């Protein structure tokens, strides 16, 4: 019998990847394409859902070609995706209503501030586990419904559909206008602010608070679930799992036991801890989210520290400042100096997420003197990722009253050797990278492979985890404390910068 494989699609914020894995969880082929990011006004971040779909259309066949296998050798497909980002589309034509609104977008800042003072606002967090913030889908969806003429009517008539990127891809892969499935999984649904975290159903109170028509929402399903076969792009592949990228990374790192934690370093960075069947409500600025739900079983909860801007700060340095040609060159530039020279960058581009939740904060570079070179700035870029991690790790330790001794990492930024060393230094723990840096894809493959019995159980998956690299702390504790104190002062300076006047489109006034 021909060898069989599992396929994963990772629809990330920066790029979309299609990866084929063998039964030992080894990579067989990778196809990848970046998509454009639009920023038409300050604080707005959009993507073209059609471009993303076209990329999937190219990379799926390419991954099969590169692996030298046929679709009949793929036993299951797992889909994982950037979370909260969503698109609304016409179910009769398949055409999106405008661009997808990305999780980094802060256009709803004023709307959110105003909603926070409405009756019922106090209950939002209890119901969905999330603080009222621009980050999640519901406020942006509400904004779109208010902004586009007739959209609310079309939604109520069932003519337009809402979906996070998993939903958009599954609908298209299973036929689109010809009977495409309109479904999502619990982890993605848990990021919309519309799902009740206890019942895992769309919550009528939240729907009415945000004024969202129930009819446009997909059906919520477990993470592992046989959704059906693809009928387009590469027909005949069983779609057997869907989950948000951070949840997939938790799964790919085999954090199956309570207390196991990982941090994924991509466009943003996200620390997640498996809390088992316990729903923990943070008192230190973390989110409660669904870790995953294996078909038919109760959900596994997770506690999350979300950092909005880490890899995207490197991209900003590359694209907006033009100081480097490629993201990895940030390390080369940072190595031209021995320290930050007193300079700190707080990348509050989308306000600050965990543990601060200051949506009115804006980014700053502080500590500038004539001594500072672009090398110091590059160093400050990398350190910003490390100190932001330290803040969410501290919050997690405070919530749980204990301190973890190691950090499991993955994502595109883990290729940065200097950054990983700085993270070990500022956290004062060992940083461990597993042998599959593409842990997000691996997690989606694991979930799909489990659903179809390609892998028998979680214990078998654990045995595939191997250490690829370990960084151990080397920083002098006094120096660490001083630097952390400086970082905290810099963060405080970002608070309260944006006032409503600043958020008005400056082009019109």
């Amino acid at each position, binding site marked *: 019998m021909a060898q069989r494989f599992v396929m994963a699609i990772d629809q990330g914020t920066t790029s979309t990847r299609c990866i084929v894995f063998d039964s030992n*969880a*080894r990579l067989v082929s*990778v196809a990848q394409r970046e998509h454009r990011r639009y920023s038409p006004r300050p604080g707005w971040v959009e993507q073209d859902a059609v471009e993303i779909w076209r990329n999937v259309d190219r990379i799926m066949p390419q991954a099969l070609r590169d692996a030298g296998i046929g679709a009949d050798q793929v036993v299951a497909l797992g889909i994982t995706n950037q979370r909260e980002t969503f698109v609304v589309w016409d179910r009769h034509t398949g055409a999106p209503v405008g661009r997808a609104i990305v999780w980094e977008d802060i256009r709803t800042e004023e709307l959110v501030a105003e909603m926070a003072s409405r009756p019922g606002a106090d209950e939002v967090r209890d119901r969905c586990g999330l603080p009222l913030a621009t980050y999640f889908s519901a406020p942006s969806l509400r904004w779109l419904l208010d902004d586009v003429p007739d959209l609310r009517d079309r939604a109520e008539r069932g003519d337009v559909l809402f979906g996070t990127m998993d939903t958009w891809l599954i609908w298209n892969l299973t036929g689109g206008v010809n009977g495409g499935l309109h479904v999502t999984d619990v982890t993605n649904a848990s990021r919309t602010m519309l799902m009740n975290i206890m019942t895992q159903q769309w919550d009528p109170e939240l729907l009415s608070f945000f004024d969202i028509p129930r009819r446009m929402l997909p059906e919520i399903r477990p993470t592992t679930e046989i959704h059906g076969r693809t009928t387009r792009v590469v027909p005949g592949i069983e779609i057997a799992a869907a989950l948000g990228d951070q949840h997939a990374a938790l799964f790919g790192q085999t954090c199956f036991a309570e207390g196991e934690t990982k941090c994924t370093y991509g466009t943003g960075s996200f620390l997640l801890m498996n809390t088992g069947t316990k729903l923990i409500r943070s008192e230190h600025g973390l989110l409660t989210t669904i870790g995953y739900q294996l078909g038919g079983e109760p959900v596994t909860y997770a506690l999350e520290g979300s950092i909005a801007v880490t890899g995207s700060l490197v991209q900003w340095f590359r694209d907006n400042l033009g100081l480097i040609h490629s*993201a*990895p*060159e940030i390390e080369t530039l940072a190595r031209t100096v021995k320290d930050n020279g007193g300079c700190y960058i707080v990348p509050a581009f989308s306000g600050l997420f965990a543990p601060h939740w200051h949506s009115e904060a804006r980014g700053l570079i502080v500590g500038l003197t004539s001594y500072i070179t672009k090398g110091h700035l590059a160093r400050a870029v990398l350190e910003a990722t490390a100190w932001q991690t330290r803040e969410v790790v501290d919050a997690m330790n405070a919530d749980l009253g204990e301190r973890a001794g190691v950090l499991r990492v993955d994502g595109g930024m883990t290729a940065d050797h200097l950054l990983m060393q700085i993270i070990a230094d500022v956290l004062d723990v060992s940083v461990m990278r597993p042998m599959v840096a593409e842990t997000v894809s691996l997690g989606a493959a694991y979930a799909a492979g489990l659903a179809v019995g390609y892998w028998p159980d979680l214990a078998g998956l654990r045995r595939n985890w*191997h*250490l690829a*690299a370990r960084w151990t702390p080397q920083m002098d504790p006094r120096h660490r404390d001083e630097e952390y104190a400086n970082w905290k002062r810099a963060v405080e300076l970002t608070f309260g910068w944006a006032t409503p006047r600043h958020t008005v489109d400056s082009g019109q006034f």
Partner: protein
Amino acid sequence: MPGPIQSIERAAAMLRLLARGSGHHGLAEIAAALGLAKGTAHGILRTLQRVEFVEQDQSTGRYRLGAALLHLGTSYLDANELRSRSINWADTLAARSGHEVRIGMHLDGAVLVVHHVFRPDDTMQTLGIGGMLPLHATALGKVLLAYDAGLLATIRRAELTSLTRRTIVRPSALERVLAEVRAAGWASEAEEYMPGEAGIAAPIRMPGGLVVGAIGISGAVDRICQTANRPRQALVDHVCHAAEAVSRSLATDN
């Protein structure tokens, strides 16, 4: 002997043209100046752009000489970029071979380790990124020497230090081995750097064929080699496969 290759002559003419005057030229202007059809000129410009000898202004669409031309003699590929681009295949090589993986580039007459993946047995190991290895005594180094005649010449002038009983110290012997490396497309080392240790490596190439680095595995000599210090064929295949995969990933622009 074949005659001159027309597209290379045209590319050279284009670079001369761009080096003159304003330094900013539109496609039509370039085609007209060289008497080429627009399509032909565009094809050559696109290729020059790919190798970074030419840049296109995003807003005006005009062409100018690329920054890479100014740094032709210095490092071609950023070491940290090579690590980023190869990380997936280095991991896969470690998983498939069961051995630790290193990627090396030449720096100051030695091999600079730009990437290191642990042996997948979860034993305590130390990350070796940033370390230096001798060129003449390691498989990684032999690959770098085999495809760089200039580097070999500088090495020959220095003395080949003996590190073990088996280190190749005679220049003529080393040259014979390097010729074999070029013929086979991979290199090996057996107890030439450390007693009891062996390694296999293969070249990482940029589009066009230039060797920019080497990827290899290393481990206990009896696990890497079969008999008479000949490396196991299956491991050689894994290493060459990984080197090709990394080279392919360098050819796709992100």
